[in-house]
């Protein structure tokens, strides 16, 4: 077991121009645990995920993922984390199989793995249709395939279950759920579902951490204030 926490933030600050999006956010996530990030639209959830994914650099504070400080050691972390963002990060004119094949090549992964993950989400039959012809739920399933293709140890999941029906939700559970064994950070508009999955909850309000606590200690009043 890793002695370091898988994700550690200390006094994280990020601005966009003169606007401050994240103020002094600190949280520590042990390996294998799940952090739920709650908050309204614009509270800084997606920015936090993008910083952890090495796509944005922090402006102040310390960030480390899998023991590697960001942004200095970003190269050492890439390839060991998977980001499921709002956008599926798939080319609309290519088929699911071609898209995943491209990502497999970028990550240096054997093509067989593409078939395996397609199977796992039940998309094998429709894997040769261009992504633009697929329903949103199917695109989301392909995006999940893309996220876990390289078996990342950290999963950053922005609204992972958006557009998925209950059957599909069950299908992807072993891939991005607790069973995946990965350290997870997830956001959700639906606080109840997120709380059920989490070991740790971070409430973001206007870019600052309103609370960091375990899910059974979250006060309903605090939660209400977060989404009020």
């Amino acid at each position, binding site marked *: 077991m890793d002695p370091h926490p898988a994700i550690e933030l200390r006094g994280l600050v990020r601005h966009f121009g003169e606007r401050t999006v994240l103020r002094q956010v600190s949280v520590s996530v042990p390996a294998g645990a799940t952090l739920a990030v709650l908050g309204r639209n614009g509270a800084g959830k997606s920015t936090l995920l993008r910083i952890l994914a090495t796509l944005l650099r922090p402006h102040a504070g310390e960030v480390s993922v899998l023991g590697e400080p960001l942004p200095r050691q970003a190269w050492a972390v890439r390839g060991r984390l998977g980001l499921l963002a709002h956008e599926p*990060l798939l080319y609309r004119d290519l088929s699911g199989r071609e898209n995943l094949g*491209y990502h497999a090549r970028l990550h*240096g992964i054997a093509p067989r793995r593409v078939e395996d993950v397609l199977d796992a989400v039940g998309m094998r039959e429709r894997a040769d249709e261009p992504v633009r012809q697929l329903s949103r739920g199917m695109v989301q399933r392909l995006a999940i395939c893309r996220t876990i293709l390289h078996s990342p140890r950290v999963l950053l999941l922005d609204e992972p279950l958006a557009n998925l029906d209950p059957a599909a939700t069950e299908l992807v559970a072993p891939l991005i759920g607790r069973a995946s064994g990965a350290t997870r950070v997830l956001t959700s508009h639906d606080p109840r579902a997120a709380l059920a999955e989490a070991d740790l909850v971070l409430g973001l309000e206007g870019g600052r951490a309103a609370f960091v606590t375990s899910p059974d200690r979250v006060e309903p009043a605090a939660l209400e204030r977060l989404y009020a």
Partner: protein
Amino acid sequence: MREGSREEQTPGTWRTAGAVLRKDLLLELRGLDTLPAMVLFAIVTFVIFHFGLNQATIAGQEAAGVLTVTLLFAAMLGINRLFVAEREQGGFDAFLLAPVDRSALLIAKATALFLFLVVLEVVAVPAFGLLLLGPSLGPRLPGLIAVLALGDVAFAVIGTLVSAIAVQTRARDLIGPIIGLPLLLPALIAVARGAGPLLAAQGSGSPPGKWVAILALYDVVFALLSYAVFDFLLED
């Protein structure tokens, strides 16, 4: 400290560039967004020059100018579209999430643009010979190919750089050409002046060495420069 298996698998710069290039060619093949437009644009422009100049055939420097300017403007169409799919469909993020050398994106995009330009010229140059050029194209072809190939490298490298800058701006269709055209002007001068003597009625078979050298210098300098600054266009 890191899993050994991961490290071995991480593809090198050229393999990565190969993967991106392959994906780009596949995308173009599926969508046919760029190449047909570039070719059609070039041929229409030849027709426009025929009427604009009111001449059935042209030769020498005039012909070289018409050909080069047409190719430059057609290239601008490709340059404008080069990174649009990356920007609009998350390709930048997907690429940045992979443990790969960022320069591979520059190499892949410049190669893709170069290939687009070659395909454009394979159609547009014979069309030019047919529609406008007075002297026959055949004996002049080897020299012309050499000059155009060097010019294509300049167009591809600078075009990729300009396109990567412009695609992140609000007015990318405008910013691309207004930055790209002045930057490409020395290459345009060299291609046009290099091709001029070739296309003259009693043209020689080989382009003037001076212009070939200038083009080669321009290619090398901007290739190195683009390589040095490209990473900064990707990070956030």
